[in-house]
């Protein structure tokens, strides 16, 4: 745990970087904007002072609510709210030990699982399908995300074209004045160390101008794109988040913003990013603590693992990764379910195991409810020494309190064996199958559905993937 002194020290170190070294924004209009507000600028490098950061911190809201098409599924970011989203951006699907290219059908499977899950609150675009041309695949993926579930979507925005799709589809869904409310939620990355790439600047400017939330998430890799030490990683990550915050608040004071981080150490043997390691858990915990300190909504951690099977390694790493941030009060978790192989692949079995894990952690995090009724002192008195509680009406009244549907084994060995003796991955596959069979697409206004179809499939050369019938 970081002390407030630790946090202040890290903050001061970050400020020093912003003031002395500066940050490169590879987009002239962004740099011009800073210059017009009196920031010191050298080429594309912008220098920020403590006063600039303080000014941004003074106006950024500590929480905000995203509104989707189903009012029951609006989501609040900040305070003690937790929003969990599924895996995002994987290229591959892992089945058994076999790694294969992800397809539209896999994307649809993931979305169905997310829609049916009671622990996943939000969608990430889980898979970048490789069975169609990239530009068409993007629109078709977005179409699937918007129609197969009425949960809010973390729009994957990597290029100005993607940004346009986000803006256009929001207008179709919510009408011309859609930006009166928070509708488009996206994660933007800095390009560590201390850079913001052109597309990121454009997205930040355009979204902030419409007052849409931005979750700024550096992915510093210790030893390669950042210092090798965890404290150094944290300082660099903090400086980059503050730089993004200053930009967003300059464009639109009061624009919702999330303090994100997914930085970790790299293997000094191979250079690979490591996400199943204690240093990652510590960094993610610290990320949340710093966000909490500044009263900002946070994003960190996830069900991440470096394993290539939904096995015990994966289980340990995910549980540690999720528990670290959940216990610290994180507000938003992307890659909460289904991601495997260090961000590179999705596993359906792991998806439902993670789903279960998130549910268990949510229960674990509830404080033990202390009241007359729950302490049951009078019941204990009534039963007395050596008695039995099974016949008590208190027991009868509360016997379902901790009854969580679960496919984890809770039975004795012989019963477990007689039911197939399945390991967790095999049980998870059964569970996934059942979830998929019970999937029902949410209602969507037929007119909107048609408009979305026209927009997303209009220019396609490849037959549209029929996720939802018109």
């Amino acid at each position: 745990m970081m002390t407030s002194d630790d946090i202040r020290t890290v903050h001061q170190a970050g400020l020093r970087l912003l003031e002395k070294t500066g940050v490169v924004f590879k987009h002239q209009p962004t740099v011009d904007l800073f210059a017009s507000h009196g920031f010191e600028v050298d080429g594309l490098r912008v220098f920020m002072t403590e006063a600039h950061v303080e000014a941004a911190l003074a106006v950024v809201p500590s929480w905000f609510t995203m509104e989707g098409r189903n009012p029951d599924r609006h989501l609040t970011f900040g305070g003690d709210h937790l929003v969990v989203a599924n895996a995002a951006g994987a290229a591959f699907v892992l089945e058994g030990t076999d790694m294969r290219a992800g397809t539209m059908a896999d994307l649809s499977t993931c979305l169905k699982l997310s829609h049916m899950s009671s622990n996943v609150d939000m969608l990430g675009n889980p898979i970048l399908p490789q069975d169609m041309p990239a530009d068409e695949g993007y629109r078709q993926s977005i179409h699937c995300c918007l129609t197969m579930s009425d949960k809010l979507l973390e729009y994957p925005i990597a290029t100005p074209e993607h940004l346009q799709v986000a803006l256009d589809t929001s207008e179709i869904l919510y009408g011309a004045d859609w930006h009166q409310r928070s509708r488009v939620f996206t994660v933007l990355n800095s390009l560590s160390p201390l850079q913001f790439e052109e597309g990121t600047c454009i997205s930040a400017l355009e979204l902030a101008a419409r007052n849409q939330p931005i979750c700024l998430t550096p992915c510093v890799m210790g030893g390669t794109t950042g210092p090798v030490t965890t404290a150094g990683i944290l300082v660099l990550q903090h400086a980059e988040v503050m730089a993004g915050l200053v930009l967003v608040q300059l464009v639109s004071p009061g624009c919702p913003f999330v303090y994100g981080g997914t930085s970790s150490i790299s293997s000094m043997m191979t250079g690979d990013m490591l996400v199943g390691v204690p240093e990652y858990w510590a960094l993610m915990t610290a990320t949340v603590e710093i966000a909490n300190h500044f009263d900002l909504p946070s994003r960190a951690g996830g069900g991440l693992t470096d394993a290539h099977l939904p096995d015990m390694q994966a289980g340990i790493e995910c549980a540690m990764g999720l528990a670290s941030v959940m216990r610290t009060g994180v507000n938003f978790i992307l890659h909460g379910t289904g991601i495997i192989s260090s961000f590179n692949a999705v596993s359906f079995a792991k998806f439902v195991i993670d789903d279960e894990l998130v549910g268990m952690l949510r229960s674990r995090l509830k404080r033990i409810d202390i009241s007359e009724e729950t302490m049951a002192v009078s019941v204990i008195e009534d039963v007395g020494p050596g008695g039995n509680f099974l016949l008590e009406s208190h027991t009868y009244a509360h016997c379902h309190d901790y009854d969580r549907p679960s496919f984890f084994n809770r039975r004795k060995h012989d019963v477990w064996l007689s039911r197939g003796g399945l390991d967790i991955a095999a049980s998870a596959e059964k569970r996934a199958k059942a979830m998929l069979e019970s999937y029902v697409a949410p209602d969507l206004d037929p007119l909107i559905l048609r408009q979305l179809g026209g927009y997303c499939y209009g220019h396609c050369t490849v037959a549209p993937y029929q996720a939802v019938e018109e």
Partner: protein
Amino acid sequence: MALLDDIKQNVEVGNRDAVLAQVQQALDEGTTAQDVLAQGLIAAMDIVGAKMEAEEMFIPEVLRAAKTMEAGLGILRPHLAVGDVKVQGKVVIGTVKGDLHDIGKNLVAMLLASAGFDVVDVGINVTPADFAKHVKDNDANFLGLSALLTTTMPMMKETLAALETAGLRGQVKVLVGGAPVNQSFADQIGADGYASDAGAAIKVAKELA
């Protein structure tokens, strides 16, 4: 010879000052530059390569050793003939258009350089036409392409086409890599080599050289 052994060891642990002094001392004592190179500097890098493969040395240590070897070579150079230092080849390397991921590419570039290749790193988000131009301008005989996104992998194929159009395809061996790339993709687009990591990249490049 004890002094050459010392040089070898000091290259391995990246002790630059000691290597500079000892290489000079060896020359002063009458050892030929060729012997210092072969039995001191190159012998050290052979050990480093083996230790890296055996996962006994970490990347920063390998790079430090390579820099130390280069420093020693600086002293030897005036005493060596043109053919004494074998340059493995001239490599242009970059990340394809639309892609900003460069950590893997940087690693491959650094390790290729430390393995004796003359490397020109042309950065990220490089268009097929620019790759062709860099190959031409540098008279390269290797082109290394890196892509980390499935959406940018097709740019590798387009880069090969641009080389073809520019009449340069015959002059360069093309090596591809990056997390979503694999051997069958490399074969499919007609690349000359594929490597799954930086160590493999050096091996493949040496085989193609």
